[in-house]
């Protein structure tokens, strides 16, 4: 079920300004100049017409993923650009710390679902706009959208979305059917930095093509945390990773970064440890930041990036101008800096190239090494890959982490060599992982 205002049945009213009674004179003047007038910089496909506005208002469907810092801005921007059929998805609820930038939420909304509150606010502020909301979505829903815009805060989620859109592509005799392409506009921010990119799945660089642009998050080495702390952060991680599971201060509950009592406990323990080693700097704020992996955020950066994204949605929906090709970087720490470039497709991208991935290992390599490669390679960055293959006509799981019983059963395989496991040169391995909705096919290439 979708939360939000149900589409009204609107009786056609003459006047030509949008759908029925909710429009007023001049409402769309700032938009129509770009739809009804020819110009020297428009897209080659652009044709000035009075019908383009109707397309925006009545037909064009946009999916917004995320109703947080970027999501709120995106909804506002789209609504004020003429888009009316908008769906927004977010599984989170509102937190007090969101309010410094997620302007569709108020203190009274804390605890309520973001998508629902955001949709309702937009619908009540922008007459005629019909934002529908949901906590999660399925592949089924993607097909009906003209354009998808992401304002996500996780790379895994981005890759998942990216993979989904790629899976919707249809090829005929190896040629991509353009009508199966759903453009994806992706925005991301962190403090005073941000980026916006346009992805035409199957045609331009996808998220995985440029995975190296997102370097893997670095965690502190365990030996540092366990026996050689130097920074206040090390002391905090000691309390979080080692002391909490051991002492179980609140019973069997896992550490909840949003629970002030939990943070207080970690803070106290971290302080004690720091004192032992003469380390200064453990504060409550730092503790919370480390435990929750908090990324600083302000309204301004989100406003800039969401604006750039929405501009691109408008361009693509109306052909008013040639869209961004294809990546914009923004940083306003020192003055304002933007850099625009064309990210290139990776020939053997594991997500969009349709080329089976090459795995080069000696036959004496252990399965553990293959697993390590899948997680540590900068271009794959898998989280907990499950590896299956076909042996003697039967499907065999070589290793799978996410189901305890299967993990236990297949764990011994990690120490076996590829040869011992019965794998041969050219063997296909199917790998499933949270970073990709479709299994990735790998081809084993024995080096010795």
């Amino acid at each position: 079920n979708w939360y939000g205002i149900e589409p009204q049945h609107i009786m056609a009213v003459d006047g030509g300004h949008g759908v029925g009674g909710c429009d007023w004179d001049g409402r769309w003047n700032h938009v129509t100049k770009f739809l009804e007038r020819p110009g020297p910089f428009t897209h080659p496909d652009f044709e000035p017409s009075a019908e383009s506005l109707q397309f925006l208002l009545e037909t064009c469907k946009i999916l917004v993923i995320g109703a947080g810092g970027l999501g709120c801005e995106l909804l506002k921007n789209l609504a004020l650009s003429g888009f009316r059929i908008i769906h927004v998805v977010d599984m989170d609820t509102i937190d007090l710390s969101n309010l410094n930038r997620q302007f569709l939420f108020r203190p009274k909304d804390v605890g309520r679902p973001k998508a629902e509150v955001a949709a309702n606010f937009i619908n009540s502020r922008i007459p005629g706009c019909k934002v529908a909301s949901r906590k999660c979505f399925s592949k089924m829903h993607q097909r009906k959208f003209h354009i998808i815009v992401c304002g996500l805060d996780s790379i895994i989620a981005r890759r998942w979305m990216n993979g989904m859109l790629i899976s919707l592509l249809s090829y005929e005799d190896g040629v991509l059917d353009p009508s199966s392409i759903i453009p994806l506009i992706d925005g991301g921010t962190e403090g005073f930095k941000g980026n916006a990119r346009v992805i035409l799945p199957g045609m331009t660089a996808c998220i995985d093509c440029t995975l190296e642009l997102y370097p893997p998050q670095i965690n502190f080495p365990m030996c540092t945390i366990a026996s050689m702390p130097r920074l206040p952060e090390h002391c905090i991680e000691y309390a979080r990773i080692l002391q909490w599971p051991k002492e179980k201060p609140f019973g069997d509950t896992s550490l909840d970064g949003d629970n002030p009592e939990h943070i207080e406990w970690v803070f106290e323990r971290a302080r004690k440890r720091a004192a032992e080693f003469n380390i200064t700097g453990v504060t409550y704020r730092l503790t919370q930041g480390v435990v929750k992996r908090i990324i600083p955020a302000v309204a301004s950066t989100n406003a800039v990036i969401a604006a750039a994204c929405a501009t691109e949605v408008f361009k693509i929906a109306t052909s008013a101008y040639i869209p961004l090709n294809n990546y914009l970087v923004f940083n306003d720490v020192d003055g304002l800096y933007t850099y625009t470039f064309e990210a290139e497709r990776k020939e053997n991208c594991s997500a969009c190239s349709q080329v089976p991935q090459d795995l080069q290992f000696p036959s004496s390599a252990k399965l553990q090494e293959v697993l390590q490669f899948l997680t540590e390679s900068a271009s794959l960055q898998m989280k907990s890959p499950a590896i299956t293959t076909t042996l003697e006509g039967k499907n065999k799981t070589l290793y799978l982490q996410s189901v305890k019983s299967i993990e236990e059963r297949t764990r011994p395989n990690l120490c076996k060599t590829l040869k011992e496991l019965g794998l041969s040169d050219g063997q296909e391995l199917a790998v499933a992982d949270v970073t990709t909705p479709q299994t990735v096919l790998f081809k084993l290439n024995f080096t010795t």
Partner: protein
Amino acid sequence: MAATKASKEQKYDRQLRLWGDHGQEALENAHVCLINATATGTEILKNLVLPGIGAFTIVDGHTVSGEDVGNNFFLSNNSIGKNRAQAASELLQELNSDVSGNFVEESPNKLLDNNPEFFNRFTIVIGVHLPESTCLRLASVLWSASVPFLVCKCYGLIGYMRLAVEEHTVIESHPDNALEDLRLLQPFSELNNHIESYNLDSMDRKDHSHTPWVIIVAKHLEQWLSEHNSQPPKNYKEKEAFRQFIREGILKNDHGVPEDEENFEEAIKNVNTALNPTKIPSAVEDLFNSEACNNITSQTPSFWVMLRAVKEFAFREGNGSLPVRGTIPDMIADSQKFINLQNVYREKAMQDALAVSKHVECLLQSIGKPPESISDKDIKLFCKNSSFLRVVCCRSLAEEYSVDSVNKDEITSSMDNPDSEMVFYLMLRAVDRFYQLHSRYPGVYNYQVEDDISKLKLCVNSLLQEYSLNVNIKDDYIHEFCRYGAAEPHTVAAFLGGSAAQEAIKIISHQFVPFNNTFIYNAMSQTSATLQL
């Protein structure tokens, strides 16, 4: 109802991590003036109200039109016909109850006529979509009153911002990639003593592998200097040799195979930056040589008093260097070795800051001010950031617009590329002329577009002629600007809204570095440029 301190800390947590409690305090003491609640204006203000500025005042004499409501999140259609300042302030106020919202139903021209001092109370004035004459008038008043002025405009797919502040000092610029201050080429005596306390050759295996890379580099440098006539490794070849020299210091096992000593690998990796000479950055040298630094009076702001004190320090106790910063990066080492090393730098930094504060005291005394005028906390912060100090001085709008002082070079050299963002600056100037001449903007109505092209072209030519600018503006841009019809598409207004708000926050908080002085955003190509005009 005012929020409790705790809930404010929670609400603002994500931004406090960027500008700290003192930055937030500066914001909460600020009173921002917005002139004209267009979409651009309200978007800018939204991004200031959300982070919690103390107060805002919207000055706007216009009444809300249907067109206004169409692109503005902070105007509703039942405010059509009402005064725009009042209507917008209601919906902006609603965003954050910590903020105090005010409005003045008056055009800025009227205020300038009747009460120009009105603007003196503001921390910053943001003028949006001001006609040229009003803008210049206001700029002159604000410049004399030393009130920072941020001019913003969104015209079609072009965003424009101009900052006019005579002198803006920044202690905390928070540079992205700051070089560490390790003083390895000129170790101070306490650092030297600390290095001497190590003997790499007589250490056990565990200690050897957990010695900080700074010590490793220092020890090897000592030897190198003695063998190379006191000359540190300078070029690539020498640095390579030095790296190899360090590599040879890695312990070997009984079979002669080098052990896994990550701290040595760190040392090798850091050779390049470790061997940077401790020089006073040229930007800081320039500040040392400036008039404000050398002519300290009772009117001198504390920034310059502290700078002068640091200059004195550098000349004397500092032996040609700035106060030691006191921070070191994390490095592989056992806790004790790291903390001890860190303390050496920390204590030296404290010592240097103390020496600087003595100079501050002297200076304050010489201008008849009590020593408490500048706190120890401020002096410490200043010393810690002494390598990163920045001062931004913008030219006034009067200078930009005067035929005698127009920045011809910047304009003509940019226009070597006729599609550079500079062309949009010139078109905006031409459009202003058009407005002055015809009391309207070009191409607002469909039937006007075609005829206005030649009219706008005349304005372009008269502009170029008046300033003797030998540049060529393609007809396409003139056509495009007529096509825009002074439209203010929301997404372009929103981009500028975020950009301008952050610049205002930089001015208010004196943290991070503002742009100098003109910013152009082109939403067609998603490119931008900063011009100094």
